[in-house]
């Protein structure tokens, strides 16, 4: 089930709870000084593994990078790269032009995902991270593969009937997401599954343009233009009937482009608008550098224990192995000892067998030549 045999969770040195929800708890992890996000599923919740596998294969800037998934302590979990940015549910009201640009980015990512047979299934503001540095605005989509309708405030009517996520349901969710960005609040508010299901099914009766106008943001002539520009999007996205909805992401992108043309006049004006907004959310003092807050210790209620013992055993075994190797090397180097003893033996033997001059035994008489014929001496035998 895991992407790799070695779990990142065994290398966690610090962890911080970011969010505790009904589906899962989200933790910021410190793994080797790099930040990761852990999604720890509550009992009864799970993810679509096929979606996770397919998503894992994709490398695109607008999509989060899944590192690992599996089961630990009987709970499912998912680990993905920390995305440095702000979840869009924390951003409040977003200028219409910026919201349209951001949505186009999300649509581009969803379109690529779709080509891999993946539908997101849980498009909501918390799952779109506004990232980027300085003047740049970049959206990153997270949290694919949910099982179930996803965030109820953003789920398409058919999702309440148990249907799997598809392009059409994602398009519906995108309509609600756009509304949230522009209005700064959810369009559909209800209490409980049934109530949300009923409201989503009856969404055709909601006049979104009037709702937005009533909020007072669009009282100016410019606001009226914006509302008019957005109207085709609401009528194409927020429809309970599948056939009445926009056909696909490509069509939505075209509609978004048209809307943008109406809302902002010219590319320069659009770029200025986006840059200004990007600057405002990429301020150094804003709350996006959460990674800096990752502690080097685990919180008390962290959902799993890091198996440091394994590491200890590994290091212990490694240390003993190195020690044994060192001793073997020592013994091998001491192997010259064999030659040392042999050399000592050879040295002593050489001394023993030195060819000394033969010696006469003591008291051998010095004989005179003329006595030889009478009494020949006998030379001493030598051993």
């Amino acid at each position, binding site marked *: 089930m895991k992407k790799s045999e070695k779990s990142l969770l065994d290398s966690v040195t610090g962890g911080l709870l970011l969010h505790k929800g009904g589906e899962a708890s989200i933790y910021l992890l410190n793994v080797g000084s790099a930040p990761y996000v852990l999604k720890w599923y509550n009992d009864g919740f799970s993810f679509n593994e096929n979606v996770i596998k397919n998503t894992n294969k994709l490398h695109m800037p607008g999509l989060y990078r899944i590192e690992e998934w599996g089961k630990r302590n009987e709970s499912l979990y998912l680990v993905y790269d920390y995305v440095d940015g702000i979840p869009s549910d924390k951003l409040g009201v977003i200028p219409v032009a910026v919201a349209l640009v951001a949505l186009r980015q999300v649509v581009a990512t969803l379109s690529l995902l779709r080509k891999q047979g993946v539908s997101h299934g849980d498009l909501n503001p918390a799952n779109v991270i506004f990232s980027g540095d300085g003047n740049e605005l970049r959206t990153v989509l997270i949290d694919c593969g949910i099982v179930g309708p996803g965030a109820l405030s953003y789920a398409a009517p058919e999702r309440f009937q148990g249907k799997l996520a598809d392009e059409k349901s994602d398009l519906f969710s995108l309509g609600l997401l756009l509304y949230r960005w522009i209005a700064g609040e959810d369009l559909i508010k209800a209490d409980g599954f049934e109530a949300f299901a009923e409201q989503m099914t009856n969404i055709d009766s909601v006049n979104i343009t009037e709702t937005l106008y009533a909020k007072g943001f669009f009282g100016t002539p410019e606001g009226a233009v914006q509302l008019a520009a957005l109207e085709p999007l609401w009528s194409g996205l927020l429809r309970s009937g599948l056939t009445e909805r926009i056909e696909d992401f490509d069509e939505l992108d075209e509609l978004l482009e048209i809307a943008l043309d109406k809302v902002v006049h010219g590319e320069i004006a659009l770029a200025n608008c986006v840059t200004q907004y990007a600057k405002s959310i990429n301020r150094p003092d804003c709350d996006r550098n959460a990674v800096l807050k990752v502690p080097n210790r685990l919180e008390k209620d962290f959902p799993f224990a890091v198996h440091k013992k394994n590491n200890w055993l590994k290091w212990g075994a490694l240390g003993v192995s190195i020690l044994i190797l060192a001793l073997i090397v020592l013994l091998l180097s001491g192997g010259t000892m064999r030659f040392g003893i042999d050399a000592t*033996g050879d040295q*002593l033997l050489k001394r023993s067998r030195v*060819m*000394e*001059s*033969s010696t006469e035994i003591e008291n051998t008489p010095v004989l005179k030549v003329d006595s*030889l014929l009478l009494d020949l001496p006998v030379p001493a035998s030598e051993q």
Partner: protein
Amino acid sequence: MQCRVVYNRLYSIIEVLAAMFVVAVLCACNQGDLNRGDEALRIGDYDRAIVNFSKVLDMEPTNRDARYGLAIAYYAIAEDKERLKENTLAFWERTVREFKILSVVDSSEKSKPMYSTSLFYLARAMLAENAQSKVMPLLDRSIQLDPENYFSYNLKALILAGQGDTDEAKKIYAYIVTREPKFASAYVNLGNLYWNVHDYESAWDIWSMGHEALPQDPVLAKWTRIAEDSLKAMVYSGKL
């Protein structure tokens, strides 16, 4: 369950590693005693060498280096006693015993020459103790262990000559001087055999050959001169 299996395996691995570690440590300790024994040998501290090599053998009786070191130490002590003209029989017996054990654990050829020499010394010590000692098997074993141990050949020839087998003794002496022209005793003893049977010409031949090979050897020089003078005297007297 799987977790427990993994842990059991890990512990098994740790146990094996720990056993290897203990063995390695013991080997390292033995190696220290070996090194100390060898160092003691080299500086002539034979008693200390015996202590250190014995420590290793207490732990590992089949340790070849320790056994060889112990045998060498006894050998050196016995040889020192030889130089002091002391009774060495007991020392050579002990030395030979260690070499005999060594021959069981050491298949190499390295220690054989010294074992061979120890047997020669033992035979000589036994003869010094009792001239009738049966040392021929020791000498044959010595020659078998080291065919270049001409000391054992020389002693064997001396014994054979003493037993009256002068022909065999002559062959051995001739073999020695052929293989080792610097072995002065063989020239002396071979010449002796000829001299004893009044073959002065042959005696002179052998001694003069030895004197030529070893001009600094005083015994060979002396007996070459004596034989030469004797031959001259015999010529002058008309006996030759």
